């Protein structure tokens, strides 16, 4: 039973990883990556690492890949192929691929394939449970854990600052909706109403007539 699940998940992992590279449409590439990550979570589940499996799905398939899907669906949904690479780039890609393969082989053979004949570490109840992982994070792996959390904090603060810069840091902007400039009463009375606003729809811009917004509406014939 477990070996069946292992082979199904392993095939899913490999097929997903190959799909990411091979598929021409970026949207399908992202979906292949999602399939890869979910299959990887199944492998973690086989190793009785329930928490790691759930974290894998929630964080990677759930949060990270959702943003990838979001961006790709908006920007690169068409069937246009990724920019064709020159011969130099291809050579470098092949070299890097070969180097990675060598490294992997060294790692695999370096373990002298012991795991093929052994049963691995015995299972102790509670292994991989959230409480055990939490204890390890706060004792043995405290420093990497804190460094990682600090890194994430920096990233979060950076994202907030970048998002705010777009709209400026003025005090007024706090009151305004993103993309909707606020309209003052004076602006409405003088006819300088931005197009597409509620005031225009209510006919305020139309009545003034002299202003830019008003004439444009007259030229269109209104509705």
């Amino acid at each position, binding site marked *: *039973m477990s070996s069946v699940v292992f082979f199904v998940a392993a095939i899913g992992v490999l097929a997903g990883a190959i799909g990411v590279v091979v598929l021409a449409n970026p949207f399908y590439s992202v979906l292949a990556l999602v399939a890869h990550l979910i299959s990887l979570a199944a492998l973690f589940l086989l190793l009785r690492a329930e*928490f790691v499996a759930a974290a894998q799905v929630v964080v990677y398939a759930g949060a990270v890949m959702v943003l990838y899907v979001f961006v790709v*669906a908006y920007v690169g949904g068409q069937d246009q192929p990724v920019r064709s690479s020159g011969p130099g780039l291809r050579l470098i890609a092949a070299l890097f691929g070969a180097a990675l393969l060598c490294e992997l082989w060294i790692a695999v053979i370096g373990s002298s394939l012991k795991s093929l004949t052994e*049963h691995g570490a015995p299972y102790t109840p509670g292994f991989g449970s959230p409480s055990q992982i939490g204890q390890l994070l706060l004792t043995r792996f405290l420093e990497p854990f804190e460094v990682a959390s600090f890194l994430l904090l920096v990233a979060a603060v950076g994202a907030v600052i970048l998002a705010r810069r777009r709209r400026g840091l003025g005090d007024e902007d706090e009151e305004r909706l993103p993309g909707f400039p606020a309209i003052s009463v004076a602006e409405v009375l003088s006819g300088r109403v931005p197009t597409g606003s509620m005031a225009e729809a209510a006919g305020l811009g139309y009545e003034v007539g002299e202003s830019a917004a008003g004439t444009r509406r007259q030229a269109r014939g209104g509705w």
Partner: protein
Amino acid sequence: MTAHGSGGLLAVVSYWEPWWIQIIKSLLVFGVGLSMVPVILILERKGLGRFQNRYGPNRVGVFGIMQPLADILKLLRKEQFRPATSVGLLFALAPVISILTAVATFAIIPFGDVHNLFGTNVGLYGIDVSIGPLYAFAFGAIAFYGIMLGGWASGSKYSFLGAMRGAAQLISYEVALGLSLIGVVFQAGTLSLTGIVHAQQHYGLWFFLPQIVGFLIFMVSGFAETNRAPFDLVEADAELVGGYNTEYGGGRFASYYFAEYLNVFVISGLATTMFLGGWLLPFGIHPPAFIDPIVVLVKMFVFVIVFIWVRATLPRLRYDQLMRFGWKVLLPLATVNALVTAILVVET
């Protein structure tokens, strides 16, 4: 794996139940989910009717209670149609993902404690995972792809916009939903859902009172996660025709519909378990074991009625209001709630 236990993979999930009990349980969980959805449907249609000063469906069966079955039969007998612009495989796969994740999440709702049935110990739940709510969030994350793929593969701008809204909404509110449960997990000291119910028994008070802030955040985020009114921008009819399921018809539309209402039921079940004491009764009443599932079902239906009530009462939010509320109100509030709970738990 087989060296450690004769049960193989099944032993990983649950350590003492024989395989045939697990198969019966999985069928039972699916059966309960499948049979409760029409009940919720008729409850909602009759309820909405009464809220809006009309009768609601009253033609099929006594008081119209057979109406959902008639609807489902009609949908299933319709022609399978898909637009020429759609992507065939993904278009068919998307409702399957939605329904699969909804049913999978339903499996963790505990309907009772472990009891001695048929000569073995049987827990009255699908599975009792050690990661509890995280399991629900993992499947919630996959459920996103059901909506997203459905919208994208339809090849229609209304579907696509609906799916995009769904994406942003799900990401935003899942964070608040997760953080709102952390307080309960702190107090219970366990992630297992049955463990949380036991913790409420020992604590002597259901967690919705000490965790009232978390409870309210959970309910609001739950409305957003299930795309229910007033957060149903994913399928805002006036702007998007029908949202991500605009191009769907027949059985596939029925699957989406089924998944949506099952999700409502699952959120109700999670709220019942985490905040309302699961199968416990107040004032120290200990009924016989067969009452337990009924208690849980009654509590869940209380939440379902709240869902219907809110839908009949509140108007839909604007999209920027929805986003701002999620990020600027619920998320900080949930974080502060988790912090305060952590401090209080450590203190005592």
